[in-house]
């Protein structure tokens, strides 16, 4: 064994510092907060004593209490609030500003980065790919998840069957990409194929192909998004399966008594009952699909016309040093997400009203 454990020392030291910092910050905060009530109580006592000494025995009512409830709340919210401000709010605003500046963030260029986004043939392909992703992935993943949830519902090995589909959720996008890259692996004609897809292709009489280079009809993009479908179907299945199980028994029973068959049952009872869950699933998958980066980066690095908005954003901002264009892509991503979220919020509100 050639592994040098001593070289790993600094890492564990850092982990230790991290854990100590955790204890100090969280414990310290709770301690300080613990101190506030007694401190304020003591001050109030002193003031009451002073007042009593003067003779004006006016008790300080409960109105004063609310004041330090506010202080206490500020203490509880402080860490989360501060980090959100530094780590999310301010950076997001800065990104918005940067998107109107040039690559080195030195001069204002107006909407130039946005017109670049919609005029270059490469970026247009990126936009086209993103559209393909966001249409196909939610659609197929939700369909597969729904069909599977219905099929295995109350089956003998339901728990195991569901775990099999659900398992990819635990696998990183990078791991999943390697798994599928192996499926798509290519060996020249005549050699034994090691990738499953090419082997099947050859069995059916085709010539082995370099699948990830197949740009015709955006085939390689479709092969990439299959990885995402593979991961997200499990999520759809779990949520929808829970929704199916929550359909009241009497509705199902009544439908049975009316003599509906399995097909009608699905379309007339199951589907309408789980509509809200269906929307949540489609929306959630759409949003994570829009932001997909790891799969593209690991499988093709965005080459061969497979780039999407998120991968292009990374390349522009962190590889080519084009901060302005990268920021414009990030803002564009944000703009794409907003309507989906608004749709979901309105949906939720409508549900609660009815």
């Amino acid at each position, binding site marked *: 064994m050639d592994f040098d454990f001593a070289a790993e020392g600094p890492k*564990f030291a850092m982990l230790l510092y991290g854990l100590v910092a955790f204890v100090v910050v969280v414990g310290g905060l709770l301690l300080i907060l613990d101190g506030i009530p007694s401190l304020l109580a003591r001050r109030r006592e002193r003031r009451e004593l002073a007042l009593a000494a003067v003779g004006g025995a006016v008790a300080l009512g409960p109105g004063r209490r609310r004041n330090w*409830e506010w202080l206490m709340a500020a203490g509880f919210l402080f860490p989360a609030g501060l980090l959100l401000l530094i780590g999310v709010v301010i*950076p997001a605003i800065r990104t918005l500003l940067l998107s109107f500046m040039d690559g080195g963030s030195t001069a204002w260029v107006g909407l130039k980065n946005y017109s670049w986004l919609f005029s270059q043939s490469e970026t247009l392909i990126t936009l086209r790919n993103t559209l393909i992703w966001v249409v196909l992935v939610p659609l197929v993943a939700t369909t597969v998840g729904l069909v599977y949830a219905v099929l295995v519902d109350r089956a003998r090995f339901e728990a195991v069957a569901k775990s099999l589909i659900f398992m990819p959720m635990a696998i990183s996008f990078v791991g999943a990409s390697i798994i599928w890259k192996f499926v798509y692996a290519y060996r020249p004609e005549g050699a034994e194929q090691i990738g499953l897809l090419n082997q099947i292709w050859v069995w059916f009489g085709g010539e082995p192909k370099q699948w990830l280079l197949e740009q015709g009809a955006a085939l390689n993009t479709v092969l990439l998004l299959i990885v995402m479908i593979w991961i997200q179907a499990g999520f759809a299945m779990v949520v929808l399966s829970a*929704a199916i199980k929550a*359909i009241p028994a009497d509705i199902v029973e009544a439908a049975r008594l009316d003599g509906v068959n399995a097909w009608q049952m699905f379309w007339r009872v199951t589907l309408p009952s789980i509509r809200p*869950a269906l929307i949540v699933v489609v929306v959630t998958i759409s949003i994570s699909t829009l932001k997909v980066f790891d799969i593209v980066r690991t499988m093709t690095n965005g080459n061969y016309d497979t780039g999407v908005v998120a991968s292009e954003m990374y390349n522009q901002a962190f590889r080519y040093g084009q901060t302005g264009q990268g920021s414009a892509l990030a803002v564009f991503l*944000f703009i794409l997400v907003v309507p989906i979220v608004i749709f979901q919020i309105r949906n939720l509100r409508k549900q609660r009203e009815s």
Partner: protein
Amino acid sequence: MTTTTPVATAGAAVSADSPRTAVGRVRKRLNSPIATAASIVIAVVWTIPTFGLLVSSFRPERQIKGNGWWNAFTDPQFTLQNYQDVLFGRSSSSGQLASYFINSLVITIPSVLFPLAFCSLAAYALAWMNFKGRDWIYISIFALQIVPLQMALVPLLSFFSRGVTLGGITLLPAWGLTGSEKYIQVWFAHTCFALPLGVFLLHNFVSQLPKDLFEAARVDGASHPRIFRTIVLPLITPSLAAFGIFQFLWVWNDLLVALIFAGGTKETAPLTVRLAELAGTRGNEWQRLTSGAFVSIVVPLIVFLSLQRYFVRGLLAGSVKG
């Protein structure tokens, strides 16, 4: 704005395996042979890619590169050499994943603990304290979920590496982190990005605790920190577990944040970064990619399979990760 529909069904999912209700009896009859066959087909298609990777990772290099993994059934030859190489091999081309594995651990543990603590504190305040603007703060945090983390990456990186200057005046100096100190950047970034979802999820659970509990405690003169420690934390342990697993999987599996904030070296980069690099530069070294991928998969898989119940609960609480 607290619950999405599936929340109501969370209980049903947990008791999924419980037997024969009326629905169960009715549904039972719907299971035809075709349905069974179809579900088996989907299950097989979904499992085979992972299975092929697992089988391949135990095959000798010559065999992996020579023929398909399905030949392992007719000509079984298995070895642990790939794992030995990819984990501990000295040459830089071999992977050295043991080092990166440790990096992943060091990155993940604090990146789960900090958000758990900060989110539960905030969730408690937003659910059970009375102060002006409470609802507004909650809605703002909820709304932040829709900001993609891509929006924060460039400025946050420059915040670490160049500090903050406004009109030529340095407000905050650069952090100047080098070597293994870069972990701090990663922890910081992951913690920030976890907060909107975490506060939202935990608020859902904390706000559903019975009101009497808090009133009784207040009457007894318990302070907020005390109530938080002795009443709230023990009661929301399952939700903490749910969010904890969620965050664990997110951080362990993350590539983007790590690429930008951890750098690409053996000192701090996690497994995902290394694997993505191997897949790019040594795309045909399948003996290393297969075993390497499995090394990165095994920890989340164990966590996931042993704590699946909590994970499902977290998922059903309706989540959109920013």
